[in-house]
């Protein structure tokens, strides 16, 4: 590993966002003949989930624990290609208003019952539509099963193929057993704490406060897989404790920033561990700064741009994220090969320009050197947000803006940002997939303003031009034309600046050199680890 592999960004406490896909880097960490048997002990950089499986996602933690037990219809390769999982293939109708999927045969649930098209129909209509992918399935018309291995999903509008394929790869867009969930409230179904899926691992035990124990699914549809007999997901709250457990050989692999940056250097320095940023291409995290349009000061575009010009994001990337972050230039992030463009409006660090914009907007410095005061809220779910808040406070005060900084905990942050809109500026985070609709666009469209729903349009930004553009993106089935529309969207948003994509963050996996075939899925959360193995 090079130096880049020895850095880490942040600790993670799951803020749930549906992630689909980003094209990736070539896989690695696979060598030699796979060794069968043994137990892999894994951990991650967050806490224990509230349930092993949450139909709506419920944040990153239950997604990580459930993704080893359930499977999706499709997935993406590290090269960015879509591939079938429980669906063998899919193709659109000529008008793109329906898609026909061939469902894989010979797949069994962990309780021995066959997975059938009825399970697919139930999962899409009752779980995806109502919970897992509700915001993406607004134009969903229905699903039918014309024969034993085919389902047809129909929509009210044309659906672009990239959008549809991404939908099949959605983090928790699983196929769940109808015979377990039908007739029950999926949210409170006891099976959520002992899931029955089709994945390579079968649930065995949850020792609350300690670990999940999964065992090999002997009837897995991928022949002779998984290689290992047992998978343990351990929850260690303290990053130093995780580092010690890894060093002592108790934990083989930790994903999503499991240990602090100095420990990464120490662990990799022993030669017994590797650290890699691979495996996060489909779920790039960012730190954002959004302005609350309900405050008349921020209704002026010049003021919003001025705020962003006052912030040195390179400084933040180097000092707070140890270099494992980069300034964002667009609401679509740079690893997104399909839709990222550099042809955007730049709000680079320029305090003089910031001051000039504020003067021009009618907010000159008063006798006390202040122009106006703002309440800056740094969401407390990442410790780094508080540090960024402290810097932003200083940076804005340098251009004459008085800042009242608060760093509330997660529930309070969610309530103040997304329910009460009790902020002038908010430092928050997103994890966006490559398909921009609705994950990215809902931060900017009028229909994204949903009081009480987090990770939507909290700024109150409403622009008919953007709304109309997003409606076009939703239904444009020509890939080239759709890409051009997304580029246009990116340009408008960076000029309008309701939300600054302040930093793109890089996540890290730390693994023992014995662990093979890890980090070979661009979506670490949804990876099933069917082919992971442990060398002698």
């Amino acid at each position: 590993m090079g130096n880049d592999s020895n850095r880490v960004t942040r600790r993670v406490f799951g803020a749930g966002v549906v992630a689909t896909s980003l094209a990736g880097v070539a896989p690695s960490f696979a060598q030699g003949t796979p060794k069968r048997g043994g137990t892999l002990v894994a951990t991650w950089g967050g806490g224990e989930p509230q349930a092993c499986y949450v139909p709506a996602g419920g944040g990153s933690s239950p997604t990580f624990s459930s993704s080893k037990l359930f499977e999706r219809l499709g997935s993406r390769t590290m090269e960015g290609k879509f591939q079938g999982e429980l669906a063998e293939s899919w193709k659109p109708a000529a008008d793109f208003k329906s898609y026909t999927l061939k469902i894989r045969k010979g797949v069994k649930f962990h309780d021995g019952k066959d997975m059938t098209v009825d399970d697919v129909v139930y999962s899409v209509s009752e779980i995806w539509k109502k919970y897992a992918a509700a915001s993406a399935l607004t134009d969903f018309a229905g699903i039918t099963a014309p024969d034993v291995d085919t389902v047809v999903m129909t929509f009210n509008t044309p659906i672009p193929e990239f959008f549809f394929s991404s939908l099949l790869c959605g983090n928790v867009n699983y196929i769940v057993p109808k015979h377990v969930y039908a007739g029950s409230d999926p949210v409170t179904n006891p099976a959520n704490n002992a899931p029955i899926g089709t994945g390579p691992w079968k649930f065995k035990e949850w020792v609350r406060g300690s670990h999940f124990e999964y065992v090999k699914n002997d009837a897995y549809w991928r022949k002779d897989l998984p290689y290992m007999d047992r998978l343990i997901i351990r929850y260690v709250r303290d990053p130093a404790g995780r580092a010690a457990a890894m060093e002592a050989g108790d934990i083989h692999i930790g994903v999503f920033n499991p240990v602090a940056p100095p420990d990464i250097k120490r662990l990799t320095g022993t030669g017994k561990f590797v650290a890699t940023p691979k495996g996060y291409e489909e779920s790039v995290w960012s730190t954002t700064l959004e302005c609350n349009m309900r405050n008349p000061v921020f209704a002026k575009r010049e003021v919003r741009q001025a705020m962003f010009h006052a912030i040195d994001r390179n400084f933040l990337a180097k000092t707070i994220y140890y270099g494992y972050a980069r300034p964002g230039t667009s609401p679509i992030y740079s690893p997104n090969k399909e839709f990222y463009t550099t042809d955007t409006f730049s709000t680079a660090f320029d305090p003089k320009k910031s001051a000039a914009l504020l003067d021009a907007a009618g907010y000159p410095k008063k006798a006390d050197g202040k122009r106006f005061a703002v309440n800056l809220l740094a969401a407390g779910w990442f410790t780094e947000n508080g540090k960024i808040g402290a810097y932003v406070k200083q940076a804005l005060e340098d251009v004459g803006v008085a800042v009242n900084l608060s760093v509330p905990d997660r529930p309070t942050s969610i309530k103040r940002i997304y329910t009460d809109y009790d902020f002038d500026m908010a430092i928050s985070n997103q994890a966006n997939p490559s398909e921009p609709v609705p994950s990215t666009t809902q931060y900017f469209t009028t229909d994204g303003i949903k009081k009480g729903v987090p990770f939507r349009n909290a700024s109150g930004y409403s622009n008919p031009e953007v709304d109309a553009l997003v409606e076009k993106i939703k239904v444009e089935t020509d890939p080239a034309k759709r890409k051009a529309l997304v580029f246009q969207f990116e340009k408008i948003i960076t000029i309008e600046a309701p939300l600054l994509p302040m930093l793109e963050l890089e996540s890290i996996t730390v693994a023992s050199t014995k662990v093979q075939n890890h980090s070979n899925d661009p979506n670490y959360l949804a990876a099933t680890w069917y082919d992971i193995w442990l060398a002698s």
Partner: protein
Amino acid sequence: MAGELASPAAPPRITRGSSRRVAALRLLRRRLIQAVPLMLGVVVINFVLIQLAPGSFLELMTAENQVSDPATIALLRTTYGLDDPVWLQLVKYIWALMRFDFGFSYRQNIPVIDAISVHLPATLLLMISSITLALAVGVAAGVVASMKVRTFWDTLVSVAAMFFFAAPSFWLGIMLIVLFSVKLGWLPVGGMATIGGTSSGAGGVLDILHHLILPTLALGLFYAAIYARVMRSSMLEVAQLDFVRTARAKGLSRNQVTISHVLRNALLPVVTILGVQMGTVLAGSVVIESVFSWPGVGSLLFDSVSSRNYPVVLGIMVLGSLVVIAANIAVDLIYMWLDPRIEIR
């Protein structure tokens, strides 16, 4: 509760045999009666404090489940009784508690008592082992220091006590892990048992004890340091009293005097502190559980506060208070046993 002595003005009431048992029962009855308003206070204060905290479990739950439909949210509010005024919610909660119903954890989808009972044994085990260690090490060190005043051993005890008193328990825990788990490989890094190992019989017990050593040291040595200091000064103070001089004059050996007369009386302040510190031991276990991934109530409490899982937070507070109250009653009874002259009011 512990250590509320009879008025110094009143002569100590000497109780013997069955009358001591009667006194103990009287004390037990009195403490249990006092516990009722105490528990009520704990419930009311915690309930009100939780209500004052911004955000609610419903908001977090709907947020995590991406529920935005106002009708659905209103239905959930009604389902969870959040439509009721706060005072009515409190009354309903107290009424349920009186029927030993601690409520339902909607976040985990299990009854609160089930959620807590999974974790409580681990915390109690850690508390008991830590207190036992603290008492054994602290009392022994204090006795040695008092018998070897101004010698190397006295200095050693003082320095060690100062170190363990000053060292933050989470730091000490990490250092112990680095030394005994990472470097020497003698003890496990964390957890309560070997995953996939023997969980029953003597093997299971030994496995748990193996995992218990480091967290017990990390939590218990702080209290051992306190007890050592208190015990040393208490021993020196008691050794100056007339009855000790009388015992020596009677020809008892130094060890007999120390163990039979000085030690027993010198223990009283330690027992007093023990009762007072039960609550802090419980609180301290929250930190230690985090460092050692010990699956106790501490981690559950942390998660529950973070997720505004109020029923579980309240349940832990109530059960924690019960544990502290029970421990204090036990301390009062020990107090009576140690010094029969004392009747605790």
